[in-house]
């Protein structure tokens, strides 16, 4: 149909000959299948790191912030570095789902679900640091303007730290509802496929009874669009406000008006790098290479290249302005960053963030999966050091040379940081096994415009893969094939066992996903009534069934009727 037209120059976003049903099956497969050894190994490592982190947090709260490497000169170090690093990573998800939605970029659909999950999980990690840094965690609610026993003691709304509280909690909660609303149709898909009662119950609960009425879809699309419109300025505001934590102070190296756009670009940069890290692994492990294609990775690499270059321009602008301002303190701060005792951190930041993304100008390199993965890790390291450089090098040389010092982290600092990485991966690994990791409903809606086979049909005159309209024949089929069909029926029943209506009760075959009332009728006509019979099906029986039912080619095998029936038989 012409309405699905997409220019041939756009590369396909869904590889292979997929039908709507194939998308369902392949997105549901990681959830319905069993976890492999690799998953359990990764999960165990992440869980151990998380437990170590919990131990370090408990030790910090029990003993005091003194167990960290902070001193009276360097009062912010690993904690705030980690906080800004995690918030930055949490920017890509909303950028992909909101900004790319406003720009009608179809490639967002393969990756938005996981990017949003990553956003939410990393903002959770980010939020931990300021809370722990408070020391008396049990008073954390003091950051909220809630009525208290002091009567008129309110929070200070002039403070950027309080703006941060509002910005990050709004960001976290809005991202969460955005994510969940998009998940409803996909949870509904899992619910309607679920065979075991427990899974069915859980996914019914999670899908909020999503039904897919035309009106619901109309509202769904409008809500997504408005949420995207709201989330776009929101995501820009979050890192802007994080940068205000520094920019509104009078510390040389922090007191910079360029900070908000520079921080936002840096956040998008690190966020996309983390999305690349996670998705390059996930597309392989969960067999989703048809949906998260090389094209997706290449486009993310281009975003990394552009935002990395913006960050590079910001670094150079800072240096220029420090020199041009004529302010000695400012000049010293930047000279000290590059040539002082933390020169190695500065060099690491420059080479990872400015130099390494420039490789992406080469088409060959940005299409290489291995290279993209390496760069994504390099960028994550570089962006951690960027925050470390900004925070620690500006503080360790303060106004009094007698208090000049260095910062070294203790095992508790490291423990909490590693712990949050563990926590993040615990959440992400659990997500990858229980959530529909691709927005399958949305991907189905672009199948006809961006699916490889559909594009081939339009551009090169291949066969249209869409099911055609069935023409009702005026003349009924002659009786000749019936004999042959009867013969096949008998062969089929011979291997599946004959169902005796008098002694056995028929099962509800509609419970098998892929079987509807009509198909059930057809199966009953053949003589198949029970799960027991269906569960005995093998390759041979599937082929026989296909020859009997010409409109359901290969469906029984793809849906694994036998496996489903076995489950149903045992649970029934």
């Amino acid at each position: 149909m012409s309405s699905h037209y997409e220019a041939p120059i756009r590369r396909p976003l869904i590889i292979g000959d997929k039908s709507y049903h194939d998308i369902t099956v392949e997105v549901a497969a990681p959830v319905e299948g069993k976890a492999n050894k690799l998953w359990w190994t990764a999960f165990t490592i992440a869980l151990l790191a998380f437990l170590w982190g919990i131990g370090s947090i408990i030790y910090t709260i029990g003993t005091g912030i003194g167990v960290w490497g902070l001193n009276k000169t360097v009062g912010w170090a690993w904690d705030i570095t980690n906080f800004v690093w995690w918030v930055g990573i949490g920017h890509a998800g909303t950028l992909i789902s909101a900004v790319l939605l406003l720009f009608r970029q179809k490639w967002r659909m393969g990756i938005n679900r996981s990017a949003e999950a990553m956003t939410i999980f990393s903002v959770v990690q980010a939020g931990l640091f300021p809370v722990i840094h408070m020391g008396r965690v049990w008073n954390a609610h003091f950051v909220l303007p809630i009525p208290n026993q002091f009567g008129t003691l309110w929070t200070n709304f002039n403070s950027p730290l309080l703006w941060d509280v509002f910005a990050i909690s709004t960001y976290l909660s809005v991202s969460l509802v955005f994510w969940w609303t998009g998940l409803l149709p996909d949870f509904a898909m899992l619910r309607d496929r679920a065979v075991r009662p427990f899974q069915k119950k859980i996914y019914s609960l999670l899908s909020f009874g999503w039904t897919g009425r035309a009106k619901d879809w109309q509202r769904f699309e409008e809500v997504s669009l408005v949420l995207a419109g709201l989330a776009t300025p929101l995501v820009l505001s979050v890192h802007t406000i994080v940068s205000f934590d520094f920019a509104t102070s009078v510390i040389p190296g922090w007191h910079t008006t360029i900070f908000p756009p520079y921080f936002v670009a840096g956040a998008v940069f690190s966020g996309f790098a983390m999305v690349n890290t996670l998705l390059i692994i996930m597309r392989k492990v969960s067999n989703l290479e048809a949906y998260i294609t090389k094209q997706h990775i290449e486009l993310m690499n281009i975003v990394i290249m552009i935002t990395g270059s913006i960050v590079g321009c910001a670094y150079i602008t800072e240096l220029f302005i420090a020199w041009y301002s004529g302010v000695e303190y400012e000049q010293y701060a930047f000279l000290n960053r590059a040539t002082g005792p933390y020169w190695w951190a500065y060099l690491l930041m420059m080479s990872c963030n400015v130099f390494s993304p420039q490789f992406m100008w080469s088409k060959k390199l940005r299409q290489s999966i291995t290279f993209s993965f390496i760069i994504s890790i390099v960028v994550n390291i570089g962006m951690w050091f960027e925050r470390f450089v900004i925070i620690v090098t500006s503080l360790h040389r303060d106004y009094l040379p007698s208090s000049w010092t260095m910062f070294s982290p203790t095992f508790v600092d490291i423990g909490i940081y590693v712990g949050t990485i563990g926590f993040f991966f615990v959440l992400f690994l659990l997500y990858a096994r229980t959530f529909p990791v691709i927005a399958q409903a949305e991907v189905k809606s672009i199948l006809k415009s961006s699916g490889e086979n559909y594009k081939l049909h339009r551009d090169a005159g291949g066969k249209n893969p869409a099911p055609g309209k069935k023409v009702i024949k005026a003349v009924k089929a002659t009786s000749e094939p019936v004999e042959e069909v009867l013969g096949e029926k008998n062969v089929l029943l011979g291997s599946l066992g004959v169902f005796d209506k008098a002694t056995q009760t028929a099962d509800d075959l509609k419970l098998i996903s892929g079987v509807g009332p009509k198909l059930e009728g057809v199966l009953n006509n053949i003589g198949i009534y029970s799960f027991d019979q269906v569960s005995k099906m093998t390759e041979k029986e599937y082929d026989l069934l296909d020859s009997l039912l010409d409109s359901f080619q290969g469906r029984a095998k793809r849906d694994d009727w036998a496996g489903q029936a076995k489950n149903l038989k045992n649970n029934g």
Partner: protein
Amino acid sequence: MSSKVIQAMYNDDDILMDAVKEVRAAHHHIEEVYTPFPVHGLDKAMGLKGTRIAITAFMYGCVGFSFAIWMMNYMMIDQWPQDIGGKPSFSFFQNMPAFVPIMFELSVFFAAHLMVITFYMRSRLWPFKKAENPDPRTTDDMFVMEVAVDGNEKELISFLENTGTVEIKVTEK
């Protein structure tokens, strides 16, 4: 009025769209269409009115904005004006620039959450709500059109069969 409906199932969105147009042209009443993904233009083809949910979002945003102004004026200016860092809190308008970030955040907070809650209430979506799709395949790859029967069952069935349906079911609603 009879509550009998015919559920015609389709296996392709384009066939469904044509069918919807044909059924509408023949003046049969489409009760509902269930689809596994948003089919663009279906709401217009069915003659559904546009949704007003974006307007509610704007109004909720205004509520959030006003709430932020009221809250910060009450807490910082009205109830206990303090001089913080040499910046006294005597007048709302002079202190206003510092309040802009939170005014923005609360506008977004109210607009986003209340709009989503409105959407969930209007579309009857909440935890423990039972799904009402007529066939589990409608969240997979099947499209179901429900057409009201008005004493013309036979005629309607043969009409729908010509629109490319793959399954037809008559049920009481």
